[in-house]
């Protein structure tokens, strides 16, 4: 057991803190993916190696060797300072790693630099109305006509489609192949004729998602990542990673601390909520769980750093446990505030800028998205515990 990162990392942490102290005022406020301030901040972070750290220099990144501990230190210190860690979005978090792993040299040169600089915004076309948990059942068709794919079908849950420049999209290109082997991974411009985007308002009241329709959308043949029929492997090269990072324990810890502050400041009949033993016990229960998840994450990290160490099920359970925990945590804050907990949008009694209600709902979305809790339980029981798979239904003929 050794929880220290060593002196090299202590000095790296100091560097990050110094950078934040000197530059935090330049960071953009809010979550504007397209603003100039966000792009300038992104450029500064890449130059200093605080984002896109391991992306090769030739594609516009910082070009450092992968170092899990340094990445973690950067994430921790930006979170502590409550400063934007740079641009996110599915282009940077999902497409760029996919291209680095599976893309051609031309694709890497064409797409990575503008994507990480915020010049090229992407959306992800995976789920369909008939292909949610069973993603490989997707049916959006791509038929080769000369040098072009002709795409017809519909995607759903395409976040940022209304502002995206390009889409990375799973399509069925080999209708006669087994379902996992008939999929291809295509990239195309969202301004291509035949694309229609309809916003999908969710329970938070915002249109975080869209439905995206394709009618005879023509895409140059070479805009494919991997070979024809390999799209499932291309998409899965990084899907697991997405799940692990949906609800990090450090953020849950920050939220518990905010909840404690809330309970110290809010009162009922003049008594502080923290002095109510029922509420306090519920708080302590949540704190126990957050603590357990923090240590679970230490184990995940340690297993990455020490390849001989058995991670057990520590990685497999983080999406399920992390998202459920955040939903419960935000829900507790709403409970203890009574009617004030209902305040939303422009309500003058709003607490924490409305974050408690917003995250309460948002994390219900994450419990469902990225592989539902039920799918996670299938994965844990079948791959983790070695339990038998559900017998497959034969298609009725």
């Amino acid at each position, binding site marked *: 057991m050794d929880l220290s990162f060593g002196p090299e990392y202590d000095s790296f942490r100091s560097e990050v803190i110094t950078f934040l102290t000197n530059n935090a005022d330049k960071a953009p406020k809010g979550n504007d993916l397209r603003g100039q301030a966000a792009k300038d901040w992104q450029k500064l972070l890449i130059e200093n190696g605080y984002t896109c750290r391991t992306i090769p220099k030739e594609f516009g990144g910082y070009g450092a060797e992968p170092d899990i501990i340094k990445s973690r230190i950067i994430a921790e210190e930006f979170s502590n300072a409550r400063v934007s860690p740079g641009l996110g979005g599915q282009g940077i978090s999902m497409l760029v790693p996919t291209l680095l792993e599976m893309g051609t040299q031309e694709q890497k040169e064409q797409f990575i630099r503008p994507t990480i600089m915020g010049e090229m915004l992407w959306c992800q076309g995976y789920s369909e109305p008939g292909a949610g948990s069973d993603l490989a059942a997707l049916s959006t068709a791509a038929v080769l006509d000369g040098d072009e794919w002709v795409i017809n079908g519909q995607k759903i849950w395409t976040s940022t489609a209304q502002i995206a420049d390009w889409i990375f999209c799973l399509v069925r290109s080999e209708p006669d192949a087994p379902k996992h082997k008939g999929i291809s991974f295509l990239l195309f411009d969202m301004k291509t004729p035949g694309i229609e985007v309809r916003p999908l308002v969710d329970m938070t009241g915002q249109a975080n998602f869209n439905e995206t329709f394709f009618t005879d959308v023509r895409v140059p043949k070479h805009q494919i990542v991997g070979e024809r029929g390999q799209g499932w492997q291309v998409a899965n090269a990084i899907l697991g990673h997405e799940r692990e990072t949906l609800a990090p324990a450090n953020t849950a810890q920050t939220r518990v601390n905010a909840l404690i502050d809330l309970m110290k400041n809010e009162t009922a009949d003049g008594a502080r909520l923290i002095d109510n033993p029922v509420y306090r016990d519920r*708080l302590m229960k949540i704190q126990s769980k957050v603590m357990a998840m923090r*240590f*679970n994450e*230490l184990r995940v990290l340690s297993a990455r750093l020490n390849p001989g160490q058995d991670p057990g099920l520590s990685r497999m359970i983080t999406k399920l446990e992390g998202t459920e925990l955040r939903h419960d945590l935000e829900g507790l804050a709403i409970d203890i505030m009574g009617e004030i907990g209902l305040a939303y949008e422009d309500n003058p009694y709003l607490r924490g800028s409305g974050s408690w209600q917003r995250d309460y709902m948002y994390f219900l979305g994450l419990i469902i998205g990225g592989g539902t809790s039920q799918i996670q339980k*299938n994965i844990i029981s079948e791959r983790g515990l070695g*339990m038998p798979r559900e017998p497959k239904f034969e298609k009725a003929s």
Partner: protein
Amino acid sequence: MQFGLSEEQILLRDNVNRFLDDNSSLDRVRRYADGSDDTDIWAGLTELGVPALLVPEDQGGIGLAPLDAAIVAECLGAHIAPTPFLGTAVMAPTALVASGGDHDALLADIAAGTHRVGVAFSEAIKRRNDARVEVRGERMYGKSLFAFDADADSYLVADQQKHLHLISASDPGLKRTHLTTVDKTRRTVELTYDNVEAQCISTDTKVFDATVDIGRVAIAADTLGAAQNMLDQAVEYAKQREQFNRPIGSFQAVKHMCAEMAAQLEPCRSMVWFAGHALAELPDEARITACHTKAHLAEVAQFVAKTATEVHGGMGFTDLVGLHYWFKRCGANRQWLGAPEFVRQEAAVLQGLVTD
């Protein structure tokens, strides 16, 4: 950075598990439940150095750390082993060493496996009913309920001021009455004191706190082992048992029960490791982590014990399968040294959210 067990710790775990596989089978535990003693098990564990773990080297021990004790506790919980480990090998050495007094002879006897120390702390942790321990001029009066490691040579007793005293089991003023509980894998006793000679070990409440903290972490580790074993048994049963011409483990209703147990239990392992590590290395975090670990393991184990029994269907409810021994071990661990609500209250006090 390495968050996990060292090679030596894995070796310790494997050795203790191997011994217990052979010597603390369910049949053997049943005999203990029916009235036999645990002498052979404790003798075997003594050969492996278990009672000497926390005794410093210059006092005849091995001088290992609380995390090592937690590792052994997990093995014992997995095998529902009847042993005096918690009082004799964990709490007594911690109290005796922390007190700073000269207890070399007693520590050497503990390390050699020839002296057992029971623990009577109920007075200082949420006293129930008419229990009351009073010490006047080194003489002890009153009563302690549910002292554990009942068959002991001496008892470590906490009074209401959290002062620690040692009394001899053979003192003529001491009356011991066996108290039957649901957990037949360990024995508890009521101690009645009438002018019993009390050797004061410490009046420093920090010594009491350190003793309770490590006791709680060891109990949490025992719970981890017991709950993990119940989950393993449930998964194995669900793979074998067939209904509707297929293993019941292929039904999502059953496999999701198992996944939920695993998902809740897996972080508990990291929590026990951290709590054990913190006791020795992270004094600022040790106490609050011990509280949360004790409480959280109790809650998760309650869920696992119930759910694993359900996965076994009617057989889980029978004595035949014997799953109830693990169920009850988890239940006893939940109540010993502070039930979850009280321990969480302590966690709140420790971070200044409320005054006690």
